[in-house]
């Protein structure tokens, strides 16, 4: 799971559009800041889970 594609403005714009939302460039830049902070931790933490770790 690479982080760059998932927080690139174009990827985020398409993902938002698919859900009927049209953020501005400024919005996407702010969101990118959030995601760049979270996604590496998500990847690291997800790797520590075992299949039997249920929700």
């Amino acid at each position: 799971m690479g982080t760059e594609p998932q927080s690139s403005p174009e990827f985020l714009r398409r993902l938002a559009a698919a859900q009927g939302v049209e953020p501005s460039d400024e919005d996407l830049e702010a969101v990118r800041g959030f995601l760049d902070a979270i996604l590496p931790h998500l990847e690291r933490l997800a790797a520590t889970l075992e299949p039997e770790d249920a929700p």
Partner: protein
Amino acid sequence: MSLADVVARLRARELSPREAVEGYLRRIDGARDLNAYITVRAEEALAEAEGEARPPLYGAPVAVKDLIGVAGTRMTAGSAILRDHVAQEDAAAVARLRAGGGIVLGTLNTHEFAFGALTTSPHFGPARNPWSRDRVCGGSSGGSGAAVAADLAAAALGTDTAGSVRIPAALCGVTGLRPSTGLVPTRGVFPVAWSFDTVGPLARSAADCALLLDVLAGTRTDLTPEPQPPKVGVLTALFERADPAVAAAAERALRDLGARLEPVDLPELADAGTIQQLVMLPEAADVHLRWLRTRLADYGPDVRARLLAGLLLPPTAYVTGLRLRRRFGEALRRAFERVDLLAAPAMPVVAPRIGEETVALHGEEVPYRLALIPFNSPWSLAGVPAASVPCGFVDGLPVGLGLAGRRYAEAAVLRAAHRLQQVTDWHERRPS
């Protein structure tokens, strides 16, 4: 006056509910610059004061965060989107408050949609800290913290998803309790994130919080001290992370408490904030999806960015967050097998100035939002009760001691807070 004092005078008929309401309305009018209230229910509260004064509150005037529905009263959630929204019915917590003899003075300022920790709504203006009017009250229940600190209500209700009762309680020098998730019903409260949302009291003292909690939850909280002082786990990593003067005040309070102290190393705390974000952000985005599609420009920039982040996280992030949350809860349960309570500073810093987005910590400028997360998210993530208890001042600004307990062990948390308040007077200090 504390809630207990007001109730005692009402019960003894030394004060009528109408006189109590009138007194608070005068104080509210004289402290408008604090911007603690969004809507003052002057006429309604005076009319309600003529009704039967039911126990246990006997007509005590309280106020509620403007996220909690009060029938026939505007409920804005601090937002432009709900600026003219009128609640059709009382939230369950308000109904219980009224059934317990409380009179609702009005609704209190909040961070927009309770989705931030500053209470600096671009739509209704910042709530100002009664200890220093150029400082924030924290949030999101910032108006609740300001109203209690400035004696603009006998007590207040806030909501707490990721610290929103404890943060303003700490920064405004009042006592605040986040109850266990699910203990107090949230029906009629505009949601932030369903699986974390709670309704909790902010008041002058732990005894006041216990009184309100019992009304809200139907509990019977006994503050009688146990024969042995509680065994408290000291979260050393959080003490080291806080501003040294803030940490020193919290350490002094633990000594004053006379608790049996045991250092606790809980490495799982480091990821609690991230895990809560993985679950909270998508839940919040789902709450707001219809308006993200149609009214995106009506959100303040900070709230808009957080909601969009929730919308745009990878689809598996939510389930991963739920799995990690369960594992974190198990780690915390193991920690509570060794101690009765866990303690840390409730906040790492005192209230920042309005407009400041970073705080100085150990010589570095750290975003305020990121600085507070490790001190608040763990208890929200695990759904356990947590309180902020006044424990001193740094540069003339209040500091809170954070205490967390086992799930549904509100009484243990409040007993420890009460014990501290029997031997210190930090909770009785008032801003000039």
